[in-house]
C-alpha cells in the first residue's frame, strides 16, 4: 500500500464524514429517526442517476460531484416527504411507509441505472459505485465536496445542540414553551439528508444508514451524558470512516461501505459485551453477584434460625454445630447446593466447617443477624399491611429483602432495636 496524496485525502475525508455522521446520528437515534436515514439513502439513487443523465445531456462531466449530490439530496428529501405524507394518511404506519418508499425509490433508481448504462455519455460516471461505495475511487475534489457538506452538517448540529436535545427529550414541553419542534425536526431531517448525501460516494447508499446508527448506538452503551455521547459517537464514526477508507485503499475490490459497516459493527459488538455498566458481561456479572449474595444470606439465616429453633444462640453457652443437611432441608435446597455454599462461606470465613456440620463464625453471626433482621422486617411489614399470610410473607420476603433501598431499609429496620421474632415456626419448609 502506498500512502499517496490522494489516499491521505480520502482517508481524512472519510474520517470527517464519520465525525459528522456520528454526531448527527446520535440525535437521529434519540429522536427515533434511524430508519428515516435508511429511506433517505435508498431514495437518493434515482436522484443520482437522473442528475448524471442531465449533466451528460447538457455536455457536462457526468462524474462531477456537485450535481450528483444535489440530485441525491433532492430525491432523498422527496423520499422523506413521501414517507411523512403516507404516514399522515392514517392508512398505514410509519415503519411500513418507510419500507414502501425506500424500496420503490430504490427500484426506480435501479431501473434508471440499467437504462443510463446503455448510453455512452453517462456510462463512465461510475454510478454503480454509489450503491456500495468505493472511497478509493474518489478524486480529491470529490472529497472536498463531501467533506464540506459533512463539516457544515457537523457545525449546524453542534450549534443546534440545545434545541435538538429539547426536542428529543420532551417535544411536548418544548412546544408548550413556544419552541417550534416542527422546525427542529425539519432541521434534524435536513442534517440527516446532508450527511447521507455526503457519504454516498464513499460508503454507498445501501449502507450509509449504518454510519449514522452504529457509532451512536455504540456511544449510547458507554455513557449517560449527552455531550460525552456526542463526542464518543463522533470519534467512533471517524474511526469507522477512516478504517473503511483504509480498507478500500488496500483492497480496491472491497466495497468501502462494507468495510465501514463492519468496523462499526465490531465497535458496537465490543461495547455491547464489554461496556462497564450497560454491557452484557457486566450485567451478567452483577446478576450472578446478586444471586450469590441472596443465597449467602439465605444460608446464613438458615444457620441462625436453626440455632434459634434449638433454643440457643450464637455466642451463648448452647452454641452448637448444625448439620448442613438440616439447612438444606430448611431451605428446600438439594444437599449438593448447600454443600457448595457452605464451602464458599467457609472460604470467606463466615462459617466454620467440620464433619458435614457448620457453625457461624463471629463475622458470620453478624452477617446472619443482618439477614434475619431484613427478612423479618419485610415479613412483619407485609403482614402489617395485610398483604400476605405468614407463608406468603416468608416467600415474598425471600425475594425482596436483598434489594432494599437505603431509604426503605431505614424505614423498615429502625436501628438500634431488638431482633424481631419470626412470625412463623422455624424449621423445615412445608
Amino acid at each position, binding site marked *: 500500500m502506498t500512502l499517496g496524496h490522494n489516499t491521505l485525502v480520502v482517508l481524512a475525508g472519510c474520517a470527517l464524514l464519520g465525525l459528522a455522521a456520528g454526531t448527527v446520528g446520535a440525535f437521529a437515534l434519540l429522536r427515533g429517526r434511524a430508519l428515516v436515514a435508511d429511506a433517505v439513502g435508498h431514495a437518493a439513487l434515482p436522484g443520482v442517476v437522473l442528475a448524471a443523465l442531465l449533466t451528460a445531456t447538457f455536455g457536462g462531466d457526468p462524474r462531477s460531484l456537485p450535481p450528483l449530490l444535489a440530485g441525491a439530496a433532492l430525491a432523498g428529501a422527496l423520499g422523506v416527504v413521501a414517507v411523512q405524507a403516507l404516514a399522515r394518511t392514517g392508512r398505514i404506519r410509519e415503519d411500513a411507509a418507510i419500507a414502501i418508499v425506500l424500496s420503490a425509490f430504490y427500484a426506480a433508481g435501479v431501473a434508471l441505472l440499467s437504462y443510463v448504462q446503455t448510453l455512452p455519455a453517462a456510462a463512465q460516471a461510475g454510478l454503480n459505485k454509489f450503491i456500495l461505495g468505493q472511497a478509493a475511487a474518489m478524486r480529491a475534489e470529490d472529497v472536498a465536496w463531501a467533506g464540506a457538506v459533512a463539516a457544515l452538517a457537523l457545525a449546524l448540529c453542534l450549534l443546534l445542540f440545545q434545541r435538538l*436535545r429539547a426536542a428529543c*427529550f420532551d417535544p*411536548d414541553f418544548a*412546544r408548550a*414553551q*413556544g419552541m417550534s419542534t416542527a422546525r427542529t425536526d425539519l432541521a434534524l431531517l435536513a442534517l440527516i439528508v446532508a450527511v447521507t448525501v455526503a457519504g454516498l460516494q464513499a460508503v454507498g447508499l445501501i449502507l450509509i444508514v449504518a454510519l449514522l446508527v452504529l457509532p451512536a448506538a455504540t456511544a449510547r452503551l458507554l455513557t*449517560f451524558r449527552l455531550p460525552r455521547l456526542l463526542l464518543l459517537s463522533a470519534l467512533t464514526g471517524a474511526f469507522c470512516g477512516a478504517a473503511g477508507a483504509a480498507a478500500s485503499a488496500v483492497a480496491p475490490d472491497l466495497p468501502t461501505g462494507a468495510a465501514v459497516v463492519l468496523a462499526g459493527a465490531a465497535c458496537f459488538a465490543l461495547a455491547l459485551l464489554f461496556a462497564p455498566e450497560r454491557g452484557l458481561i457486566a450485567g451478567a456479572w452483577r446478576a450472578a453477584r446478586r444471586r450469590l449474595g441472596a443465597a449467602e444470606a439465605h444460608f446464613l439465616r438458615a444457620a441462625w434460625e436453626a440455632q434459634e429453633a434449638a433454643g440457643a444462640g450464637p455466642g451463648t453457652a448452647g452454641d452448637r454445630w448444625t448439620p448442613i443437611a438440616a439447612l438444606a432441608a430448611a431451605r428446600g435446597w438439594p444437599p449438593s447446593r448447600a454443600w457448595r455454599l457452605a464451602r464458599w462461606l467457609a472460604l470467606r470465613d463466615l462459617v466454620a466447617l467440620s464433619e458435614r456440620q457448620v457453625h457461624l463464625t463471629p463475622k458470620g453471626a453478624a452477617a446472619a443477624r443482618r439477614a434475619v433482621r431484613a427478612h423479618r422486617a419485610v415479613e412483619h411489614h407485609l403482614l402489617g399491611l395485610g398483604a400476605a399470610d405468614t407463608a406468603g410473607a416468608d416467600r415474598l420476603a425471600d425475594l425482596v429483602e436483598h434489594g432494599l433501598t437505603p431509604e426503605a431499609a431505614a424505614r423498615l429496620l429502625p436501628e438500634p432495636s431488638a431482633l424481631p421474632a419470626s412470625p412463623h415456626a422455624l424449621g423445615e419448609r412445608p
Partner: protein
Amino acid sequence: MSPGSPAPLEIRGLTVAYGERPVLWDVTWSAPTGLAAIVGPNGAGKSTLIRAALGLVPALSGSARFFGRPLAEVRPRVGYLPQRASVDWDFPATALDVVCMARYPRMRWWGRVPRAEREAALAALAEVGLADLAGRQIGRLSGGQQQRVFLARALAQEADLYLMDEPFAAVDAATEQAIVAVLRRLAAAGRSVVAVHHDLATVPAYFDHVLLLNGRVIAAGPVREAFTPEAVAAAYGGRLNVLEQASVVAGAGA
C-alpha cells in the same frame, strides 16, 4: 388577585376529538387564582383539557385564554408539568440538564447554557429537595425523584400559572408531601396551579377549587360547594366504588 382582573385560565366551548371520538364536549370553565384540581374517571379528558389549552392537541372548536390573552402573548407566564410517563427516562441527561430545559426560552438558540440560567435551574432543584442529585442521570432516580425533577423544571419556568398533569401519580408519601408544600408556597406567592388529580380523598386537603369532568363539565367551583358526593358520583357515572365514596365524604367534612 384584584377583583375584575382576568382569570389565569379561561376555557370557552372547548371540544376535542381523537379521530372521530369526541373526548371533550363543549367545556367551559374558568380557573381562579389559587390551587385548582381537575378530577374525573379514566378517559374523562382531564389531560386532554390541559394539553388542548396549551395547543398540544388540536381543538375542534373553542378557545383557551390565559390571563385574558391568547397563549402566544403570555407564554412566559404559563408553566407546564407533563405526565412523568410521557418521556423516556433512559435519555442521556442529568437532572440539571432536564431542569435547564425550562430556561431555553430565555437563552440564545445556540451555544451553552449560561451560568445565570444554570444557577436558576439549580435553585429550582434545591426547592424540591434534589440539590444533591443535580448531576445524577435521570434514569437512576427513583420514580418520586423523577417527578420532583419535573416539578423543578416547571418551577424553573417561573410562571404565574402552572398546568400540571398528574403531579402526584405513583409517588411515595414523602414526595407527595414535598409536592404539596411546593404547591402551597406557590399559592401563597399569588401563583396559580391547575392540576389533573386522581386521588379523590386528598382533593379537599390539597385544592381550593375543583373541576369535575367526564367528557363534559359535571361540576365546578370551590371544593366546599362543588365537590359533593352527588357530583362525584355523577362524574364517575356510578362506577365509583363504596370505599372511594366513603373517603370523599370523610374528606369533605374535615
